[in-house]
């Protein structure tokens, strides 16, 4: 039973802002709605960017994707700044206690030299991959259109900086804060054969101009493959081979990936559902970047895991693509 007590003199004049009312009707709005919809300026810009004079300051034409309403990209997590930082603060609290526990109990002792070497060779260099993901999501946030997607891209970008910093801390735990493991991991990233495809692909993404294509390349394709290979398959391998404690240090990434995937899939689905033209465009981008990413990651997957690992990761990605409405 709900009782509503009304005081005649303190009746609100309206429930929410006019643009929110136009979208959702005359009723109290959520904080996500008020913080998100129609907040970005859309018209009557004063000057063209000196750095891109062919475009308006905020311009939907910075991608080939066409949306009738850019606010169709609702974030299923309904993150605005406040909910975003509070959610991440909870995750970091757990991570912090995991890292503290690992260091206090000196769990590194229990890892063989060979296992430590594997972590430095396969896991720690991913901090550079995460750094690229940071750049690419910032690109989308600054070039994209409509607060619904640009704010979520910003959160993703900052998350990736956080993950790069966690990966760096794993290196520092292994090298006793000397930075040697980070240096070694970087030298693999810069010159080991297994990493060169990934590095070349990362560099290529940072010169890609269409921001939604970049979202497909980074957040859909590359992330799906890398996270499955590393935080799912390699994690399982570590667990079977005496390295289960490493999972304490990558739990953040696993939780984060689950959270982020929910948003990525919702964006993809909305973009596909918009039009046949979008679907065709997205299929083209997915095909191109999947081909590149598979070729780039294969040497790493084979050495880190086995010959089947890449196919498993691709199968997981394909399942998500089908669910989003692509290739059918």
């Amino acid at each position, binding site marked *: 039973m709900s009782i509503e007590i009304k005081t005649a003199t*303190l009746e609100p*004049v*309206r*429930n929410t*802002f*006019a*643009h929110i009312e136009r979208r959702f009707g005359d009723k109290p709005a959520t904080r996500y709605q*008020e*913080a998100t919809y129609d*907040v*970005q*300026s859309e*018209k*009557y*810009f*004063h*000057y063209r960017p*000196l*750095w891109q004079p062919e475009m308006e*300051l*905020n311009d939907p034409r910075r991608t080939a994707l066409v949306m009738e309403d850019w606010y169709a990209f609702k974030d299923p997590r309904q993150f*605005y*700044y*406040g909910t975003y*930082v509070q959610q991440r*603060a909870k*995750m*970091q609290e757990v991570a912090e206690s995991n890292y503290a526990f690992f*260091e206090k109990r000196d769990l590194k002792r229990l890892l063989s030299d060979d296992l430590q070497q594997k972590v430095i060779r396969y896991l720690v260099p991913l*901090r*550079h991959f995460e*750094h690229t993901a*940071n*750049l690419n999501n*910032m*690109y989308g*946030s*600054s070039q994209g259109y409509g607060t619904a997607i*640009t704010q979520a891209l*910003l959160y993703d*970008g*900052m998350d990736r*900086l*956080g993950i*790069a*910093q966690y990966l*760096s*801390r794993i290196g520092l*735990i292994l090298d*006793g*804060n*000397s*930075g040697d493991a980070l240096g070694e991991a970087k030298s693999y*990233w*810069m010159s080991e054969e297994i990493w060169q495809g990934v*590095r*070349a692909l990362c*560099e290529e993404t*940072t*010169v890609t101009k269409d921001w939604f294509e970049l979202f497909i390349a980074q957040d859909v394709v590359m992330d799906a493959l890398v996270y499955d290979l590393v935080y799912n398959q390699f994690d399982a391998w570590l667990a079977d081979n005496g390295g289960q404690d490493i999972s304490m240090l990558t739990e953040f990434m696993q939780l984060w990936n689950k959270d982020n995937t929910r948003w990525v899939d919702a964006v993809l689905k909305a973009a596909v559902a918009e039009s046949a033209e979008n679907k065709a465009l997205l299929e083209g981008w997915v095909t191109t970047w999947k081909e590149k990413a598979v070729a780039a990651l294969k040497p790493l997957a084979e050495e880190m895991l086995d010959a089947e690992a890449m196919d498993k990761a691709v199968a997981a990605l394909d399942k998500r693509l089908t669910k989003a409405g692509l290739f059918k």
Partner: protein
Amino acid sequence: MAAKKLNIKDKYRLLTRDLDWEYSYADRKEAFPYEDFEGIKITDWSKWEDPFRLTMDTYWKYQAEKEKKLYAIFDAFAQNNAHMNVSDPRYVNAIKIFLTGVSPLEYQAYQGFAHTGRQFGGVGARVACQMQSLDELRHVQTQIHAMSHFNKFFDGFQEYSHMHDRVWYLSVPKSFFNDARTAGPFEFMIAIGFSFEYVLTNLLFVPFMSGAAHNGDMATVTFGFSAQSDEARHMTLGLEVIKFLLEQHEDNVEIVQKWIDKWFWRGSRLLTIVAMMMDYMLPNKVMSWKEAWEVYFEEAGGALFKDLARYGIRMPKYSEIIEKEKEHISHQAWWTFYTHGHAAGFHTWIPTDEELDWLSEKYPETFDKYYRPRWELAKEMEAKGERFYTKGLPQLCTTCQIPMLFTEMDDPTQTSYRDTTYNGERYHFCSDGCKDIFEDEPEKFVQSWLPVHQIFQGNCGGPDVGDILSDFYHMNVGTDNMDMKGSPDELRWKQWKGVA
């Protein structure tokens, strides 16, 4: 082996600064294409000193703590109908200006710092900009949430986003940020990161917010001070940027000085509206605009420029004019809004006798001589039932887009007009400062979307002003605009308080 303890500086460097690498496969210039065109010379990004060393985990932790506190206050504010606690309903009009004029700038700041946070080639500078970008998004969203409750009980908030893109006086703040964001990344940093954040936002967020507290508005003071707690990081970034540019190459000094001249002038013009909010729209007074200006601009800014003198940087051009303006601009601006109160999205009024006396006391050199007589006249007309509204549309300055309301500082009875000709067209300005800015970049400023020109060209509907206000601006004519006296806001307030 016991791990050695890392100090905060080394730790931050290891966690962040080494993430980037020298490209081998793609052209790095293509990945960071906007660094050269402004003429700024960067020889070594690794010389960048991190202005603050907050890793993301710590950022989430502290920011979540701030947000938790802030939203607890918003909830309590709404549950207790705390809008009833403001000193006087006139006060609410100041925060209408805030939501329609300032909050959208926070959004543009988010976008601008996201851009530099992607485009700078040095990872240290990038990460600092990214964090500021995220903070700025926080500010716009917490402001919307703080005002959300006021919007339910007062008029003039409901179309803030639509209005910001269109309304004549809101093109002043909008064009200011559009100007900064359309500039190159280094100019943006000097414009917003340094000039605006380091010196000018203090005037809005410190004395004005203290004023909000003094007028019983807990929601606004809480978001204001909570936002300012991020601002301390932003100020440090602003100062680091300028020092970095000046230390990188001596050729940068002249470019940076030119930007300082431009953006301090533009900033002081923009703050005219804050001056008016401080002196006329806060029923309980904390300090006058002039006093705030002396503390936060002259004293704090003066110390800053003394510090920068060792690089060959001097005080911004026209500082001596700016110094004189503190005696005048709040009065000139409020008078302009009072006389154009039919076309504003908030209410205007004649100051009470007590307030007029306060202004006389705070502005002994100017108020009684130039401004009080106008208000005495307005009072007489109002008493006769002849509340005065100007019929015509004001002429706007092509650069700052403020109506021609400023006077010559040596003769406050004389409106200041300047003009220049470019490609056979004549352009009008409020000051030498604005004219200089135009003449330095005419191809940029001829693009200005001047609201009054647009109305005359038929681009905003009409032709009646009333139709433009209601159909193009989405103002509720007769409700959002006009005098505070007799407004629905005032009537409701009296009902709530049980006074006739």
